[in-house]
């Protein structure tokens, strides 16, 4: 199925979880935060959060800024 990650379309397997997506993107050990369809999904819920077609995911991290 197709989902949108950080504004880009991405092909993923059906019923992938957020943990699965993080692992597919090789972000496993990164300090990140995730928003799914405009709702924050806490880290503790990544494993049980199953994605569906056309979901919009934002994955962010901290960078230098003033």
């Amino acid at each position, binding site marked *: 199925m197709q989902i949108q*990650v*950080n*504004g*880009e379309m*991405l092909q993923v397997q059906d019923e992938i979880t957020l943990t699965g997506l993080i692992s597919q*993107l*090789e*972000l496993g050990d*990164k*300090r*990140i*935060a*995730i*928003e799914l369809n*405009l709702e*924050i999904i*806490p*880290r503790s819920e990544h494993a049980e959060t199953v994605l569906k077609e056309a979901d919009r995911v*934002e*994955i*962010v*991290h*901290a*960078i*230098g*800024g*003033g």
Partner: protein
Amino acid sequence: MSHQNDPLIIAGQSYNSRLLIGTGKYKDLEETRIAIEASGAEIVTVAVRRTNIGQNPDEPNLLDIITPDKYTILPNTAGCFNAEDAVRTCKLARELMNGHDLVKLEVLGDQKTLYPNVVDTIKAADKLVQDGFKVMVYTSDDPIVAQELESLGCVAIMPLGSMIGSGLGILNPHNINVIMEDAKVPVLVDAGVGTASEAAVAMEMGCDAVLMNSAIAGARNPVLMASAMRKAIEAGREAFLAGRMPRKRYASASSPMDGTIIG
């Protein structure tokens, strides 16, 4: 020294340093780290941005260098031009920081001036405070807007000295003074300071602290400027506490006139 017994208190937390610095525009993470160390800053701002997907998985992370156990990380909403985006960014930041809810709110008006959009800043501040955030708010030097933001529950008011990244110093010290007169929360000059003397001026005026990024990162030698800023902030604060001598229109001799060999 007096500044050691003179903590800056923001949202109930005590800090020894009155210099807050940003982490943008440095050459690399190593320069960022050394400059922050030289500045003595305890509160350090970061931006929240989309993670690059599929690029450089081994790229070092800022928060591995500037660690939350050593510094108070202050995520900002830089780059947000409306209240909704700013609120979303703060919620992502809180998740990123494991629930730590101190944020720097800035909602900008346009790219050219990066001047605060105060209408959306007020809207976002209201939402964030109600959602439990401790909001340090970047704003214009308008005393009425500052009062409104304080009454909404912001924990620090941060008027600009001049435009972000301009290095033009504090263009309207009178307005900053009016803001400080009425504020019961800390007032920080955020943006505009270009060099050490301007940081000292802000502190001598009685500002509680100064937040800066470009003045350090944009210096020819950022680490040396970070050290200069640390001293300027301390000197300015001590001068404020000491109380300057009154200005006089004419000379007043420092050496006594009695006992001179003249006459």
